[in-house]
């Protein structure tokens, strides 16, 4: 038995990456960043609004949170839609109470189905970014290029119509892209995406598109659903992260980001909301905190480039 000789050939074994999507840069080599007002921790609330068709298509893959039982999966269809009816309004109220802005990554289907929700998000001053068409709109390299381009432009156009301006940001479902996605997003006029979790400051793809790293390890989905920890532990972990980042920013004289990816059907449950509101108040009271939308972070970061 032996492996094909290609298994011992390493055509991309060279300094830098084994791809040309973006160049290498260590965080400590990045130019020092200061956020507005001398704040050192940009705290970015990013809420995903997801509509799951009860008929999953699995092309190219099934989104996290999608249907699980034999058809018709009422329990997951409705439990996910709970987030769009109830949970998201709890979050909007909590943001208003704390006086903080957020980004909302929105499936185009949410805008088409629930226009009042889009208006409520916009009138509160939050940012709307694109989050594909609906939760069947997954992307991977196995998706034909024409289909991927159509998906991206449709998501853009629906939100542009609803919001009066094209969204500047993009979040892929499950953060999964194809090898073409960065170019297609650039071509569609997006300024940034949030899919690559390799850094703690914004960085540029080779084609100029910016990546705003939306840490998946700090997401409510990862901590509460995947790792099945309590909301009290979640809040404690976020505070521990903030403590560390504020200390690191002071020691290294360069600001940091604390991205909090939120899902209304997860964090917006009644028994979790008190702890979440307590977390927001805690973070708000810290002198280092700058609550910022994705586009605010992008603008501030660009002013340093």
């Amino acid at each position: 038995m032996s492996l094909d000789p290609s298994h011992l050939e390493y055509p991309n074994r060279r300094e830098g990456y084994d791809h040309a999507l973006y160049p290498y840069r260590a965080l400590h080599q990045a130019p020092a960043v200061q956020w507005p007002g001398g704040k050192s921790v940009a705290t970015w609330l990013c809420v995903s609004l997801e509509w799951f068709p009860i008929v999953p298509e699995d092309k190219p893959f099934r989104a996290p949170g999608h249907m699980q039982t034999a058809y018709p999966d009422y329990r997951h269809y409705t439990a996910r839609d709970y987030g769009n009816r109830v949970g998201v309004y709890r979050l909007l109220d909590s943001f208003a109470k704390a006086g903080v802005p957020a980004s909302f990554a929105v499936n185009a289907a949410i805008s088409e189905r629930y226009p009042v929700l889009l208006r409520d998000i916009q009138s509160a001053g939050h940012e709307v970014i694109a989050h594909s068409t609906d939760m069947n709109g997954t992307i991977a390299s196995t998706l034909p290029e024409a289909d991927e381009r159509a998906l991206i432009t449709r998501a853009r156009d629906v939100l542009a119509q609803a919001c009066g301006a094209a969204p500047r940001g993009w979040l892929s479902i499950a953060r999964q892209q194809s090898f073409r996605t960065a170019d297609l997003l650039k071509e569609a006029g997006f300024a940034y995406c949030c899919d690559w979790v390799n850094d703690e400051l914004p960085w540029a793809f080779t084609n100029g598109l910016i990546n705003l790293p939306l840490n998946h390890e700090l997401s409510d989905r990862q901590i509460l659903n995947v790792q099945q920890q309590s909301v009290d532990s979640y809040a404690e972990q976020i505070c521990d992260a903030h403590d560390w980042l504020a200390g690191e920013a002071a020691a290294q004289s360069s600001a940091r980001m604390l991205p909090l990816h939120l899902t209304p059907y997860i964090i917006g449950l009644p028994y979790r909301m008190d702890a979440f509101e307590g977390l927001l108040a805690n973070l708000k009271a810290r002198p280092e905190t700058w609550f910022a939308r994705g586009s605010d972070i992008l603008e501030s970061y660009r002013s340093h480039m």
Partner: protein
Amino acid sequence: MQEGAADPGLYDYVPYRGRTPFAWPGGKKVAVWVSPNLEYYEIDPPANPHRKSWPMPHPDVVGYSHRDHANRVSHWRMADVMSKHGFPGSVSLSVALCQHHPHVVADANARGWEFFSHGIYNTRYSYGMDEAQERAIIEDSIRTVREATGQTIRGWLAPALTHTPRTLDLIAEYGLDYTCDLYHDDQPMPVKTATGDLISMPYSLEVNDHYGFFIYNMSPREYARTLIRQYERLADEPSGTVMCIPLHSYLIGQPHRIGPFEEVLRHIAADGRAWPARAGEIADAWRGRAL
């Protein structure tokens, strides 16, 4: 090993009870070694017929970029905490990292860390290799680490823990003297090989950060408490044991985890019963012990 036998014949049975108590240099009860995995995962590796590299079609964006965090951000966060509290690293190295990100490897070398091989890439598996292919990755490992760091590797942790029946015999033949792939004991033990002098260096899956966070789903503070309990128990026993803390900086170096982890190192360093050491130093002290 005895290929095809029900007992692979790697070692003799030695019960924990009744072993001669032993102390590490300075009379310390636990040799504590920290083993950062400095890895490179390829974005589009060839498909090994015996194991898939990534769950998603390439590029697996979260999988790849999560690990890329190590080489951009969290290596330094983890390494600074280790240096601050006096813990050297013994690096489980994807040796191609010497080509891709030489300044990560140079940073570890400058801190006085030891390197052993964890294969060429963590996306190239040994399953299915013939002997010549396996010799090629061992020789590549020895050559690459020597050229990049001046060090001669002494240890092996199979790439992504993928082995063949001949791996241990081959690394012993090439003069490597410890393996991190066997988990049968809290003390080093001789390993039966055709030639050479190989010992098993206690590594750990159970307190590996990957297991802590993704198998046992621990919170950062729970994982920190786990490491302290592991340490306290070993330090209380008379045997003279080894505690390994295997790490991946893209996990332990996340902003919500590094603070609780620093408290672990602070605790162990202050306790006084620990010998913070490199794997090679532990192997030497064990071989030189008075029997």
